[in-house]
Every structure is written in structure tokens, then in C-alpha cells.
């Protein structure tokens, strides 16, 4: 609340005042230095990549860039992103509304089932379709499959907003003479605009980055082309050039979303509305909705799982590969834990700087750390290859470099979770600790860390999840001889050994189920609508 005369003693400090107050706290220079190092870790490889792409001179750039092949890639990529993102938005909003705002039977179960396809990586979903029928290997098939894989990214945030919506808004609209449909379009939908845009952006970014699903479907986009170029020429300017174009596409998306978002901001979801909203009665159409949801969950979740089970049971050409399965699982776990640890450690100082000592510099460093949010894994991997080959040859092809790639890619995830935890731990506790004789570091360890430990755990779990199912960067950067569940799956699946590939995918999904379960329990308010009547 921003009332006139609101002052330092008032309980409802204006946001501006709080920021000014936090800014007044002395900022430890060490913290700025560490955060700057993290930002540099993100930015530097990208710089080297751009440098390599541009170092070949304009004639070469012209030659590499303006050819029919690149035109085809551009059309394919942009068209697919547009169609599939739109489909995800429509599907996500429709499912969210049915689950949250109607009297659909079994709503709680549907709420969980509709979110679950997010746990199956898109490249596994497309594998299961391809293993059934080659018919899906075209634009339409690709668009359908990635929509099934990614719609939860829109569904989840929109559902959260619909659940927290003040029922008074809709009731006022109805009392002003609007019908239910117009109320939805003119009152409800605008409320979800930010969640919808955020979810849509996430889908589009994922689509620009997606490699495995499109490679499996033989559908060429920038990512698959970069991978092919890389395989052909290893450390060549052609791959860097395509990667640069991909980065530009991502930037265009970010700027576009910023423009659409306008002056609105992502509102904090409050503890909830004072009373649950009245739900729309579906009447007879509930059978149609039930059938639709059943089909959706069947296609997006049931089909991949059933296919996996089928192929595991039927087996491949060889006997069940226990040894290589265990060794791949071992590397996946090791890499996942390493990445979780490193990323959380990198995110913590940046989050402390931005929540406790906001300033222009802190804001700029944070934005740099959020950049990988829109950077495809293949771009990060490629840029790390460029850096390591030219600057640090000792690092090339090592496990630490791969873990650094994971850390860069999942830094935004860890940052969001860590920031949220820090924002909930009031700075007054640190101040009290200081007045009781603790130095800044001691106050962090004795007071702040115990409070934000669950948040750090969530950050680590998110990173672990992303790492275990990561394919693209792993394919490019894994040391020779290191196979993860994802790469071993890929090696078999891309040679059409569907039966041999299945156990790896199955174990991968099973391993990522545990952190998902823990996360949904922690975010219980988001995942399970317990307050529903």
C-alpha cells in the first residue's frame, strides 16, 4: 500500500522505501566480487562463441548465413515455435480452468495427472511415438508431440493463479450483467495474463532449445542443425554462426515477452483468497470434458509410460543390460549431485546480494545470471567447447567442464528457489545476530542458513532433475567413456534399437520421480488444490 505519509515506522512500508532502506545497508565487497564472478562464468563463454562466429569475416558470414538451408531452418523453427506455443497456451488454460474452476469429478486427481507429463523428457515422449509409428515424423507430428510434452509449463502457473483468484472479481462481473463466457474472457483471463505469458515464454524457450525430440522426429530446427554441423566440423565457425542466430531468436522472444507484459508485474501469489470461488457447473458437458482430459493424459503420460514398459518387457536384441544400466545410472546420479551442489553454491551469493543489498550493480549481475534461462543447452555446450579448446585445453572433455555446463544452464532455476527462500527469511534476524556479536558470515551460517535450508534443498532438487534428464549438453561435453542414462538411451534410440533404449529411459524417469515428489510436497499449495470444496 502506498499511502501518503507512510513512514519508516509504519507496518506497511512502501516497496520503494524498503528498497531504499536495504540499499542503505553496507554491502560487503566480497559478495559483489563473488556474484560478479558468477555472472562472468555465464557471460564469458558466450562472448567467446560470438567472437568465433564473427572472426571469420563478413564474406564468410554472408556465405554461411544467407543460404537456402538457413532459410528452411528459420521457417521450420519459427513456425513450430509459434504453432506449438499457441497450442500449449490454449491447452494449458483450458485444462487449468476445467480443473480449478468447474465441478469436474475427481478434480484433485486430474490436477496431479495433468501436471505429470512434465516429468517425462520430451525426447522420451517422441521416442515412444516414433517407436509406434513413423507417421509422426513431420511438422504436424512434431508440433503435437512437443505440445503434449510442454503444455504443463502453461497449465501449472495458470492453475495457481486461478486457484488464488478472488471470487469477488467474477461475482462483480456477473452482477454487472456479464454472462459466464464474457466474464471468463474479460475478467478471469486477464488476471492470468502474466502467468500465461510467463508459461508461454517458457514453452517457446524450451522449444528453441529442444534437440532430442526433433532429432528423433527427423524434424530439422536450429538445434539439430547445430548438432549436425558440430559433428561434421567439431570446433567450426558454421556451428557457432547458427548458434548465434539461435541466441538472437531467444533474445527476440525475451524482448517480445517484455513488450507484451507491458507495465504489469508478476504479482506475488498470496496465501489465497478468503473463501473458495464458486465453481462453474458442467452439467452434461462434464462427460465431454472427462473424455478430453482422459485422452490428453493418456496421450501425454500414458502412452510414453506404456510404450516404455512394453519395450522393457519385450527387451532388445540383447539380454537385460544390468551392468551398463547401473554404470549409466551411477554417472547420472554423480553428475546430477555434483551439478546440484555447484549450482546451489553459485546461486546463493547472487541471491544474497540481490535480496539483501539491492543496487544497480546487483540487478545487472542478477540479470546476467538469469540469462541462461533463454539459452539453449546446445549453445552453452558449444561455447564451453570453444573456450576450453582455445583457452583451457586441460579442461576439455572432463567431468568438471560438464558440471559447469549444467551449472550455467540450471543457474536460473536455483536462483529462483534460493531468492524465494531468502525473501521469506526476514533480514531482521541477521541484524539481531549482528547486534549479538556475530560477523556477517557467522550471522549467515547461524541464522539465515538454517531458515533457508528447505529452499536450498528445493533449488538443489530442481537442478538435479534438470541435470538427470539433460541430453544435448551431455552429448557434446561428456568425457569419452562416460555414458549417462540420457546419452545411453540416446545412443540406442537414435539407431532405432527401441527395446535396448527403454530401460535407460525408464530408470531416468524413475530417478527423477523422487525429487519431483519431494518438490510437489514442498510446493503442496501449488500442486494439490487441498482447499477445493
Amino acid at each position: 500500500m502506498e499511502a501518503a505519509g507512510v513512514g519508516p515506522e509504519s507496518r506497511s512500508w512502501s516497496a520503494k522505501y524498503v528498497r531504499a532502506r536495504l540499499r542503505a545497508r553496507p554491502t560487503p565487497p566480497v559478495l559483489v566480487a563473488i556474484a560478479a564472478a558468477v555472472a562472468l562464468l555465464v557471460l564469458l563463454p558466450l562472448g567467446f562463441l560470438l567472437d568465433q562466429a564473427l572472426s571469420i569475416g563478413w564474406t564468410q558470414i554472408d556465405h554461411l548465413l544467407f543460404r537456402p538451408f538457413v532459410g528452411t531452418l528459420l521457417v521450420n523453427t519459427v513456425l513450430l515455435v509459434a504453432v506449438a506455443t499457441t497450442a500449449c497456451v490454449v491447452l494449458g488454460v483450458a485444462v487449468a480452468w476445467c480443473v480449478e474452476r468447474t465441478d469436474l469429478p475427481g478434480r484433485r486427481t486430474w490436477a496431479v495427472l495433468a501436471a505429470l507429463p512434465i516429468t517425462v523428457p520430451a525426447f522420451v515422449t517422441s521416442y515412444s511415438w516414433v517407436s509406434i509409428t513413423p507417421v509422426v515424423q513431420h511438422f504436424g507430428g512434431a508440433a503435437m508431440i512437443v505440445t503434449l510434452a510442454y503444455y504443463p509449463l502453461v497449465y501449472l502457473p495458470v492453475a495457481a493463479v486461478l486457484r488464488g483468484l478472488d471470487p469477488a472479481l467474477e461475482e462483480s462481473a456477473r452482477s454487472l450483467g456479464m454472462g459466464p463466457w464474457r466474464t471468463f474472457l474479460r475478467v478471469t483471463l486477464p488476471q492470468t495474463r502474466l502467468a500465461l505469458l510467463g508459461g508461454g515464454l517458457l514453452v517457446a524457450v524450451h522449444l528453441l532449445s529442444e534437440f532430442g525430440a526433433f532429432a528423433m522426429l527427423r524434424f530439422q530446427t536450429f538445434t539439430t542443425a547445430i548438432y549436425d554441423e558440430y559433428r561434421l566440423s567439431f570446433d567450426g565457425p558454421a556451428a557457432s554462426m547458427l548458434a548465434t542466430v539461435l541466441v538472437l531468436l531467444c533474445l527476440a522472444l525475451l524482448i517480445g515477452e517484455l513488450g507484451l507484459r507491458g507495465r504489469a508485474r508478476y504479482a506475488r501469489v498470496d496465501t489465497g483468497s478468503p473463501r473458495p470461488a464458486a465453481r462453474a457447473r458442467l452439467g452434461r458437458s462434464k462427460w465431454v470434458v472427462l473424455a478430453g482430459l482422459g485422452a490428453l493424459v493418456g496421450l501425454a503420460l500414458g502412452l510414453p509410460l506404456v510404450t516404455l514398459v512394453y519395450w522393457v518387457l519385450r527387451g532388445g536384441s540383447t539380454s537385460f543390460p544390468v551392468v551398463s544400466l547401473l554404470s549409466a545410472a551411477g554417472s547420472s546420479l554423480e553428475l546430477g549431485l555434483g551439478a546440484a551442489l555447484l549450482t546451489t553454491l553459485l546461486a546463493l551469493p547472487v541471491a544474497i546480494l540481490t535480496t539483501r543489498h539491492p543496487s544497480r550493480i546487483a540487478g545487472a549481475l542478477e540479470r546476467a545470471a538469469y540469462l541462461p534461462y533463454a539459452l539453449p543447452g546446445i549453445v552453452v555446450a558449444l561455447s564451453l567447447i570453444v573456450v576450453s579448446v582455445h583457452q583451457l585445453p586441460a579442461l576439455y572433455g572432463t567431468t568438471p567442464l560438464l558440471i559447469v555446463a549444467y551449472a550455467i544452464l540450471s543457474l536460473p532455476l536455483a536462483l529462483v528457489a534460493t531468492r524465494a527462500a531468502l525473501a521469506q527469511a526476514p533480514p531482521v534476524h541477521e541484524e539481531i545476530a549482528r547486534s549479538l556479536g556475530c560477523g556477517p558470515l557467522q550471522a549467515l551460517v547461524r541464522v539465515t542458513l538454517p531458515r533457508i535450508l528447505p529452499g536450498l534443498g528445493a533449488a538443489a532438487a530442481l537442478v538435479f532433475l534438470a541435470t538427470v534428464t539433460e541430453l544435448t549438453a551431455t552429448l557434446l561435453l561428456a568425457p569419452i567413456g562416460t555414458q549417462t542414462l540420457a546419452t545411453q538411451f540416446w545412443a540406442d534410440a537414435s539407431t532405432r534399437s527401441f527395446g535396448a533404449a527403454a530401460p535407460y529411459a525408464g530408470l531416468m524417469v524413475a530417478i527423477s520421480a523422487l525429487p519431483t515428489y519431494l518438490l510437489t510436497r514442498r510446493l503442496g499449495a501449488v500442486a494439490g488444490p487441498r482447499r477445493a470444496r
Partner: protein
Amino acid sequence: MSAPALSIAALRKSFGGTPVLTGLDLEVANGSLTAVLGPSGCGKTTLLRLIAGFERADAGTIRVGEQVVCDERTYVAPEQRGVGFVAQEGALFPHLDVAANVAFGLARSQRGSGRVQELLELVGLAGLAKRHPHELSGGQQQRVALARALAPSPRLVLLDEPFDALDAGLRTQVRAEVRAVLRESGATALLVTHDQEEALSLADVVAVMRDGAIVQAADPQSLYRDPVDAELAGFLGEAVLLAGELHAGHADTALGRLPTRGANSHGATRGSVMLRPEQILCREPLAGAPRGRVLATQFYGHDATARISLQDPACPEITARAAGHRLPAVGDEVSLVVEGTALAYPSPR
């Protein structure tokens, strides 16, 4: 006399161009309880945070004991100041139990030494050592927060509106307890509040803050009796201001000739005098005494106030206080008798 526990000179601080402290001076005597009283937004909390070292001042000097903790060149970190802090809502560490909260500021060797128990007994919570903060009432949380702040024997304890979060019934009791604890421990304390009744009833010295500076600092009785200006008089409690002609030792007003204190002027001047409503008594109509008619009354139980319009049309309405059982009725005609002296404020020339 030894150096004061705290002395502040010409302290300035602004936030994003908005001045909050504008050259503030304050001294807190050793062993005293001083209250800084001011309306919301006057910069009280900022003052405490600068003393504690959570923020840096723009200019001015802060001394704790003999040590300069903040001036142009010096900034001593909060942990090296020996200044305890009790936050508005206690701010107990939620992951620690009561004993661990109190022991937080003690050196490792001291934690088992009985100091914790001693402090818990001091605040009357000896049996609750193993409780967690969420299992305590608001008043108990405040007392634990006080014990925690006192544990390392700080040179000064700061309390930031410590009773604000408590409900009215509990507030009086916790106030008295906190005051007793501070007395017994011999600590020097500085408390900020916007509640004038709290400041006057609790503190040895009350310093009133306005527009980022201290307007007046004195013991509660002198402050209430002789506020430096009419605005302050009204802020500290209800005040009746009457325009009049001031002479040496008396003033002629709508309530007749009143004996005055302060402003020993030579010769007559225009000005005003201040009376407290409890100085004005309503009586049965008497010959010779100024009269008025009761416009409205406000009943508080133990006492009551009456708004009275004087027959003199040039004079505003005044407020008189009466014991609850002697409240006149609306419409009554009463005579007004003034007890004690009025405080004279000559008009500025």
C-alpha cells in the same frame, strides 16, 4: 559524572533524497531508560538502526560510552558495538528454542555457565527454556527477546516499539515487566514509541522527535507540564490553548486572569496560554466565575471530558476533564475554575 552511555551529535540521514534525520542531538545517561517519542514516520526507527550500526549515517557522530562508533571516518560494525537490539515483534530465531535464543550472543564458554538460566529467571520464564518461539505468547516472545539482548551485557539496549505488536490488555502488563527487568539488570535502555502514554509512564527521560530532530528531552512530568511549544503540548496530551494578553506572572484570557509560568516578559504582550483539561473544573454556576454551556461529553469510565462553549463569543470551545461520576450533562450551564498555573507562550514577533 561518568560519560553518558550514548551521545549523538548532529546526526543526518536521508533515503533516496528524502531527509529522515536532520541534525539530531541526544544524550542517554548511564543506567537510565530513555524513550524517543514521535509520530509514525518521524525517523525513530532509522535513529535506532543507525545506533545499532545496521545502517550508516550520512553525517554526524554517535558515541557509545567513550567510543566513537560512527562519524565521517569511522563505521564500527554492529557486532563490535556492544549494543543490544529488541525488534518490533521480537524476531526470535524460529529454528532455536528459548534457551538457545538467549544463549545466542554468549561466548561458547559462557553458554553452559548458568547465565541463560539467570536471565530466564530475570524475565520470569525459567520454565520455558525448551519451548520454541511459536509456542510462546506475544508477551513471552518479547521477554525472551529482551533476555536475549541483555545476555551479553551490552552497553546499551535499543527497543524498537517493543509493545506495538501486543494487544492492548497485555501491553500494560508487559510494559511494567520490561521496565522492572531493565531496572533490575541495571542496563541502559533506549526505547522508541509513538504512544505518548507509554513514553510518559515508562521512561526516566522522554525525548520528543519531530521532523528528524529532537524538540525537547526532559523527565515525563516536566515535559508534560512545560512543553516548549503549543504543537508539542498537543502531541503529549490534550491541551487547551487560550489567546490572551500576557503579563509578568499572569495572563488575561477568556477564563479570566490566570497565574502563569514561563515567558517572563517585560510588559504586556499578545500570546497564548496552555492549560491541561484536568486543570479546568466544572462547578455549579457561581457568581463571578466564567461560565459556559456543555456541548458534548465523552465518557471513558474512570474519567470523562466535556466540551464547553464559553459565553465569550471570541473564545473557542474548551475541553475540561472530570471524574467519571461528576460528569455534567449536555446542555448544563457550568462555571469553570482553573487549578494551578497556565503555561505562557508569547506570540513570535
